[in-house]
């Protein structure tokens, strides 16, 4: 069976839930994913976010590069690995809240091509390149979306091949290219010891 049960409901894909339902340990003001549009548990994800006033406050209306990386890691390794852990352990994200801490492990490289401002909806295309022992490595890209596009409709028939080629319409603007973004769900007891 693909997925897990949460309060008696089968969650077969991230697309059927709000990011807050799986990113349970992120505070409301630090959640930088609005919606998942495509998800394949062992391959990757497409998600979107639109920066708010709060996100760009004190930074000239610009959504910072470091926040792009945070948004990417939330949409990819944090969401994708939590999904797989829930599936493996047949439990809900809430059940793991006190067991694992989502941790940033390392960043390979990031290249920024353009910038994002408040209100610019962007999509994250993330590909899993390694997953083992709750550690996930992802490559991917961030694109600014054409205004007004229905992203659920656009990504309805998305697939592995299109993900691997970052096959999007030309009016999606490439913002950043990210490599070897690594996160791990660290055992809470180990995390406390290391602290």
């Amino acid at each position, binding site marked *: 069976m693909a997925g897990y049960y949460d309060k008696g409901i089968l969650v077969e894909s991230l697309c059927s839930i709000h990011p807050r339902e799986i990113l349970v340990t992120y505070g409301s003001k630090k959640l930088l994913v609005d919606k998942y549009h495509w998800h394949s548990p062992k391959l990757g994800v497409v998600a979107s976010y639109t920066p708010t006033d709060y996100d760009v406050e004190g930074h000239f209306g610009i959504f910072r590069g470091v926040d792009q990386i945070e948004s990417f890691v939330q949409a990819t390794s944090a969401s994708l690995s939590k999904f797989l852990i829930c599936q493996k352990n047949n439990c809900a994200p809430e059940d793991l809240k006190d067991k694992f801490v989502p941790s940033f*492990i390392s960043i390979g490289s990031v290249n920024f091509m353009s910038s994002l401002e408040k209100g610019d909806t962007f999509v994250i295309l993330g590909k899993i390149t*390694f997953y083992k*022992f*709750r550690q996930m490595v992802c490559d991917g890209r961030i694109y600014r979306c054409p205004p007004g596009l229905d992203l659920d409709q656009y990504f309805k028939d998305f697939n592995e091949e299109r993900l691997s080629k970052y096959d999007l319409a030309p009016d999606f603007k490439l913002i950043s290219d990210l490599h070897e973004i690594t996160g791990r769900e660290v*055992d809470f007891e180990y995390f406390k010891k290391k602290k």
Partner: protein
Amino acid sequence: MERQEIIDSLIEVLRTVRMIDPEKLVSVTEETDFLADLNTPSSQMIAFVAKVEQKFDIEFEDDDIDDLGSKVKDLVDLILKVKARG
């Protein structure tokens, strides 16, 4: 499998891990600490352990890795334990 034989195989795998100075591998013993002595980054540690699984044709559980110490002898013990449990 003898412990020294396991250590020799571990060194072979360590040679494939980037960011580990090959010169430090000359003096690896059971007491060598992957993190403190070899400066293995934590991100590379998981990739290294995954390669160890392949090398020894074994499969670790998530809990095995959570409980794993950072010394060579800890990994040798784990390999022997996993081989014994089949």
